[in-house]
């Protein structure tokens, strides 16, 4: 029997049923989400040292047996990732340069610099969009090439995680397709090498047997996957993937690198001891972050001091902290960090002053006084800055006075780990490219175009600087760099350089016939040691002239070669020494310099702010008086920076710091004149003020006396 319910009742039942279903779904969803936010991984949570005796797993999650005939390298993702949230870690600052899923670009840092001395290329690269740098995807450099070039001083991941996934689709945005197709493709051997794994041990090692130099060398040898295993000293390797030909399918497995694990490192149960620290040691950071004065390379290293914080016993990660997400505290005020309150006191200002003196910093300008008063962490002393006008805090960052090499009329040449491969055992002179100099005081946003330098937030900060050099395409008031490897392939016959363009391109040696022409029939066979001064001069001037001619000819011919693959309306240029050289019109192979309007920002130097080494207060800029900066010859404004060029004999750009700062020198000179006799003025002014006070006080006492006298007279 069926009951014929009224339609209204049935509709109500339907609505009720639907409501209950939706509530159930939402409820279950909420429960599952709540369950998901719980701790996923077991943790030790001890301040003590958690001892890591662990099993090793390869990339296929197979436990490694060191006694196997062909054991695979261990995979940090599969080994460390069993107990740590690897997905969360690999999007931290050090690994997220390419995708930038979590990290923001923030204040410009040191770019990756593509350094190819054969073609005279010093190309600043960054995926982060920092001004003055070029995106490797846009230049046409594959992620694999970037990984090989820079991976030795990166902790893995980043470009190495996505070696090819985007390089094909990332058609050079700033280059048209015709041009891109006419150039040979940047090397991409990911199918052979695999991706570059994140190596936790590069940072979290406690010392011991991990060797970061081996990490760098294994990446150079293209043994990406093997690098963590070999650098950890768990195994030795024979062979290199760099010797494997492009077509890997035809490669004999015997040609692949062979690992031999150190059996002594394995316990009978197959576990290995990893000497791991939660807070990386300074040595780990310094493998990639060492900055050294070039003079220190020679004999003066003992005379150079460490950062004052290091001398006080601190470590890098005391300030440059991170959580599991590996979002690093970069240490500058205003960093856009997921947890701004937690990092508020981890900048110079936050730690030493306990808050923001300037309201320019949105993150620090908090009304929460509790946070403002939290300076002095780790025993940071509070600087008094006695007598320093507060205006300085609106014009300068802390680092302007306290960090980097002391300002000098000629900035100091510097070497850095990433750009000069410090930490790799090789001979150095200190003059290796790229030529980086510091300190140059520039408003923090004065990058290449000076676009925001007039804003109040643009604080003077010490910068490192280098002059880019590259082969490119000039069009519409700009220059786009060409892919460096393609440039090498196209120009190697015309440049005729084996190793170093700057050394070889102008190299001229007079042949016997030339000597005969210069020295005459009688003297041309005489040994060089027996030449007269006049003959030496004659030979030298000939060499100079020929060298200049050779440089012009070879560069012009190389530009011709590049021009052949360029579409109509685009011109090949070579940028170096702050100038863009192009082929002159006509048959004679001469070079001419493109105007600044034609070349645009490409010829400007690349700069990035520096933070270390911090000097003690007594060595701060201005510690000896105002005139350290407020004088006409102050290095702050008058430092001269000479561009470094790959082309010998060419006149390079030379700029003064105030030109880059776009400072009003007329006003500065007037200002400086006020400081010329400041001490005498103080005596004079205090004298005047003292006399004035006496006059006014005597008037006051007189007035009071008269008033009292008048009152007395009135009452009597």
């Amino acid at each position, binding site marked *: 029997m069926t009951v014929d319910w009224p339609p209204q009742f049935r509709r109500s039942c339907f609505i009720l049923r639907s409501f209950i279903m939706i509530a159930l779904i939402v409820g279950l969803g909420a429960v599952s989400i709540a369950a998901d936010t719980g701790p996923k991984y077991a943790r030790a949570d001890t301040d003590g040292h958690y001892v890591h005796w662990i099993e090793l797993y390869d990339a296929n999650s197979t436990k490694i047996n060191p006694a196997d005939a062909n054991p695979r390298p261990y995979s940090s993702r599969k080994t460390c990732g069993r107990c740590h949230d690897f997905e969360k870690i690999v999007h931290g600052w050090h690994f997220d340069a390419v995708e930038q899923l979590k990290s923001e670009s923030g204040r410009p840092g040191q770019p990756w610099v593509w350094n190819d001395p054969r073609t005279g290329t010093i190309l600043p690269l960054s995926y982060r969009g920092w001004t003055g740098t070029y995106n490797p995807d846009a230049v046409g450099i594959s992620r694999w090439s970037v990984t090989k070039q820079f991976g030795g001083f990166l902790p893995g991941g980043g470009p190495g995680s996505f070696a090819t996934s985007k390089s094909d689709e990332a058609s050079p945005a700033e280059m048209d397709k015709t041009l891109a197709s006419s150039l040979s493709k940047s090397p991409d051997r990911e199918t052979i090498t695999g991706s570059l794994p994140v190596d936790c041990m590069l940072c979290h090692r406690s010392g011991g047997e991990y060797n970061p130099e081996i990490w760098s060398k294994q990446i150079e040898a293209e043994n990406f996957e093997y690098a963590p295993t070999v650098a950890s000293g768990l195994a030795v390797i024979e062979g290199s993937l760099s010797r494997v030909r492009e077509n890997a399918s035809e490669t004999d497995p015997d040609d692949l690198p062979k690992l031999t694990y150190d059996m002594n490192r394995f316990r009978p149960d197959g576990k290995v001891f990893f000497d791991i620290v939660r807070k990386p040691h300074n040595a780990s950071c310094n493998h990639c972050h060492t900055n050294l004065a070039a003079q220190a390379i020679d004999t003066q290293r003992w005379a150079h001091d460490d950062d004052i914080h290091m001398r006080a016993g601190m470590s890098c990660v005391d300030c440059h902290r991170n959580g599991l997400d590996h979002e690093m505290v970069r240490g500058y005020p205003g960093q856009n960090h997921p947890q701004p309150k937690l990092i508020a006191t981890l900048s110079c200002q936050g730690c030493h*002053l306990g808050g923001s*003196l300037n309201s320019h910093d949105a993150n620090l300008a908090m009304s929460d006084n509790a946070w403002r008063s939290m300076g002095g962490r780790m025993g940071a002393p509070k*600087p*008094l*800055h*006695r*007598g*320093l*006008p*507060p*205006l300085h*805090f*609106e014009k300068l960052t802390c680092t302007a006075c306290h960090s980097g090499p002391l300002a000098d009329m000629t900035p100091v040449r510097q070497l850095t780990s990433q750009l000069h491969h410090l930490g790799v055992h090789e001979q150095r002179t200190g003059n290796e490219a790229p030529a980086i100099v510091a300190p140059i005081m520039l408003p923090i946003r004065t990058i290449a175009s000076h676009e925001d330098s007039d804003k*109040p937030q643009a604080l003077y900060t010490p910068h490192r600087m280098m002059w880019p050099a590259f082969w490119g395409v000039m069009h519409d008031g700009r220059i786009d760099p060409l892919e460096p490897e393609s440039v090498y392939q196209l120009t190697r016959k015309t440049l005729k350089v084996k190793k170093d363009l700057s050394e070889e391109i102008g190299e001229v040696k007079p042949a016997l016939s030339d000597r005969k022409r210069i020295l005459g029939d009688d003297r041309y066979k005489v040994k060089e040691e027996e030449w007269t001064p006049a003959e030496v001069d004659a030979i030298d001037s000939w060499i100079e002239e020929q060298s200049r001619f050779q440089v012009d000819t070879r560069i012009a011919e190389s530009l011709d070669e590049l021009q052949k693959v360029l579409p109509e309306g685009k011109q090949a240029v070579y940028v170096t020494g702050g100038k863009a050289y192009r082929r002159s019109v006509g048959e004679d192979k001469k070079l001419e310099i493109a105007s600044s309007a034609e070349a645009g920002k490409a010829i400007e130097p690349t700069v990035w702010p520096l933070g270390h080494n911090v000097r003690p207060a007594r060595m701060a800029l201005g510690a000896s008086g105002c005139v350290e900066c407020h004088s006409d010859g102050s290095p702050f404004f008058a430092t001269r920076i000479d561009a470094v060029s790959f082309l010998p004999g060419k006149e390079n750009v030379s700029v003064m710091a105030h030109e880059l700062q776009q400072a*009003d020198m007329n*006003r500065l000179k*007037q*200002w400086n004149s*006020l400081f010329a006799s*400041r001490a005498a*003025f*103080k005596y*004079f*002014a*205090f004298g*005047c*003020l003292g*006399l*004035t*006070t006496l*006059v*006014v006080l*005597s*008037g*006051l006492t*007189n*007035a009071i*006396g*008269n*008033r009292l006298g008048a009152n007395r007279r009135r009452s009597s």
Partner: protein
Amino acid sequence: MNFIARLMEKGLQFDNVIVCTGIAVAVGILLHAVYAAFSSQRKSRIRGSWIARLVYLVFATLVVALTATSFGSILTAGVMEHWALLAHIAIAGAFVFVLLVFSIAWSPLKLSNANVDGQVSADTIGNAWWLSRWSLWCVLWASLVVAGSMLVAMLPIFDTIGMHEITMIHRYAGLVLAGSLMVNLYAFAAQRLGWR
């Protein structure tokens, strides 16, 4: 001093203070001028010596220039920097010396009815309108604070917070000086016109 700092922190913008003070002084002067012009009061016309008047003119010019370079800059550009700051500091050097001359020429001794040198008779200033005398006192004391605060700041005595507070004292004293001088100028003008 901390009170002022807290006040500034809570949003009391100095540019608003400048505008309000300027309006208050101007309105006060205007109201009195209207009242005096239409009232039948006609009193003695005050005249100082020409030296005293010249010193007053120089002093007033300097104060106007200092006001323009400081408050004018703050009101127009939001901050005091570049040429305005440079000019302000250069003029301030002259101000310290002129202040001494001004304090002697317009000596409070004369304000206090004591006829000291006979150049300016006690009748002319000592018996002047109370507004003239009191505003002149304000000008002198504010000038001392204005100059003193910045001179002390040139010595390595105060730390950063102290420097901030001394800067604030300098600003407010400067505002009092500018306002007092406006009133003083009006008071003397009123007496010259015989309104008082």
